[in-house]
């Protein structure tokens, strides 16, 4: 894992960061703030009993989704696990459709069928939102396969957690990625824990988890997730390697979640010390660090900070209203979206019985 005493380099000077203008830098800030405010609103109404199932908050990790996805162009695709709200907002999904999905409403991005773990926006190259740990890692490989097959210059970003690295499907994906030379970047969002299990108790490793890439003769790098410049700089290198050379990379980004594994996880102050949590909040919060940086650069002002925050809060509040006032899905709608052919009433859908509810 990235340790505090690793020597800090300044990645502001890397070309991909130098190319950022002030507006774009503020835009990145706004995205992170919006994610946090969105999730805080979600938390509030989850606790008020407005949602079901799980709610896995991303708060504390915002720089990872925002930083990496800020590098994506038309031919770059991405996919992640169940901690998926930030990626959704980063690619441009609206708070309304996301909040409505949490509420299980018909206006949700997945019509209420997916819930917190299953946001999707294929039109924005965002392929979810997946609940089975590491189950998305072969899919991410497939996105890369599709890009290469179609001759497009793009990269697939596939996110996973530090606990997910020990699933077989990920290992199979790594070998295939390297063997077939596929343009995939695996991003391990290492927040130090898989549920209540610390990285040390779940993984045996030498230097870090990403180093397992070496066994597949694959490139890897370690990233300080608290620094948006570093996230962008190193991810850019990996994505260019994918796009230009069709070579995969594992990036391990050190980060932290402030809340429990999910909101049902009331334990999270037992397996982590309050000091550990406080230390991260005080010294590594990615939003505060970026804010300070942009203030130092003269790009952000206190007024703008307040304005952005207020807007984000209002947008989140509006999304709650949207969700509240949206209709629930009908019971009949349960039977839609199972088969493409029946949804589209094709000839094929008219032959034989497709459904078997007694």
């Amino acid at each position, binding site marked *: 894992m990235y340790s505090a005493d690793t020597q800090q380099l300044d990645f502001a000077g890397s070309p991909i960061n130098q190319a950022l203008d002030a507006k774009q830098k503020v835009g990145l800030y706004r995205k992170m703030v919006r994610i946090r405010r969105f999730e805080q609103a979600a938390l509030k109404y989850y606790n008020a009993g407005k949602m079901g199932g799980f709610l896995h908050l991303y708060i504390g990790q915002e720089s990872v989704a925002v930083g990496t996805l800020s590098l994506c162009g038309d031919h770059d695709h991405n996919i992640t696990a169940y901690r998926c709200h930030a990626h959704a907002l980063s690619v441009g999904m609206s708070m309304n459709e996301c909040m409505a999905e949490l509420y299980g*409403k018909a206006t949700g991005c997945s019509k*209420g*069928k*997916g*819930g917190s773990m299953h946001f999707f926006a294929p039109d924005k190259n965002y392929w979810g939102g997946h*609940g*089975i740990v590491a189950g998305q890692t072969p899919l991410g490989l497939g996105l890369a396969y599709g890009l290469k097959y179609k001759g497009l210059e793009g990269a697939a970003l596939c996110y996973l957690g530090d606990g997910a690295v020990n*699933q077989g499907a990920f290992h199979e994906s790594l070998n295939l990625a390297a063997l077939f030379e596929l343009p995939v970047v695996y991003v391990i969002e290492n927040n130090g824990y898989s549920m209540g299990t610390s990285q040390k108790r779940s993984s045996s490793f030498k230097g870090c988890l990403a180093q397992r890439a070496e066994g597949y003769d694959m490139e890897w790098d370690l990233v300080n997730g608290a620094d948006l410049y570093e996230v962008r700089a190193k991810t850019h290198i990996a994505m260019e390697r994918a796009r230009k050379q069709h070579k995969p990379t594992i990036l391990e980004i050190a980060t932290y979640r402030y809340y429990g594994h999910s909101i049902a996880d009331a334990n999270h102050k037992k397996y982590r010390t309050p000091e550990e949590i406080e230390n991260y909040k005080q010294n590594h919060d990615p939003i505060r660090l970026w804010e300070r940086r942009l203030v130092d650069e003269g790009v952000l002002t206190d007024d703008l900070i307040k304005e952005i925050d207020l807007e984000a809060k209002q947008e989140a509040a509006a999304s709650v209203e949207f969700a509240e006032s949206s209709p629930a899905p009908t019971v009949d709608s*349960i039977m839609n979206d199972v088969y493409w052919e029946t949804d589209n009433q094709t000839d094929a859908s008219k032959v034989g019985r497709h459904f078997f509810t*007694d």
Partner: protein
Amino acid sequence: MSRTLTYREAIREGLDEELARDENVVILGEEVAQYNGAYKVTEGLWAKWGDKRVVDTPISEAGFIGMGIGASMLGVRPVMELMFWSFHSVAFDQLVNNAACVRYMSGGLINVPIVMRGPANGGNNVGATHCHVPEALFASFPGLKVCAPATPADAKGLIKAAIRDNDPVYIMENVLLYGTSGEVPDPSEGDHVVPLGKADLKREGKDVSIIAHGRSVLQALAAAETLQQEHGISAEVLDLRSIRPLDVDAILATVRKTNRVVLVDESKGFGGVSAMVSHVIQDEAFDYLDAPIKRVTTLDAPATYSPHIEPHQLPNPARIIERVLSMG
């Protein structure tokens, strides 16, 4: 004498007693030890029994389940938790080949005394990949045993029988049942063991037999009560408890008595325990049937998330009552 325990506590008590009885019993799974279990079934067991007997594993279901199977060949008796039974999908090979077939392929030289347990149910809004109810799926593999308790007493009794059984036993619990309460015999009265393969008549009746397992039993009982109160229909409720071995005698007995059957099954409509039970009934009690066997199953789509409608996707008292009434 008996006490009221929750379903969760009853399982825990069963585990605790078996940990005490046999030093080869070891509990393995994700978050079962230090975290006390994702659904707190194993709460306190690690503190009581320590690192050797209650073991946290990484997220590697194929790996740790296969490990448990291998260890069981040497006489260890692993009781392994799947945080959700749905995660069987990443360990399927270990579950249906190594656990189910190694005895057979070795001509009987090996046996695999493992227990797999965890929740297998819809209804808590966790979406399509987390709501599989694979009891029929596993019961279709000879070599495996499967049960699905509906009450705390049955949950405790079946887990104890499962741990003592020398074949692999897969127990399907239910998140929505963990908090429900019921009478459980006091340990001072002796070992409370419910044999695998024995159904339980949870309510007597004469007009129609409702046959169910797991949480559907509670739905069936609620429906039976309403049928009696509001429609004067006397419904018998048979709780299968075990899926394999299956108590065919009890099934046939209730059918011969009422001549009408509704099967309640949280499976999707294609297959499920109910399709099998339906076949057995028409095969072995054909002349006793006054009407076709009817089923109430989960609406045949992947599990939806929406809390507003998920309850309607599952078997529920209203759907059961409607089905019974429609039989005329």
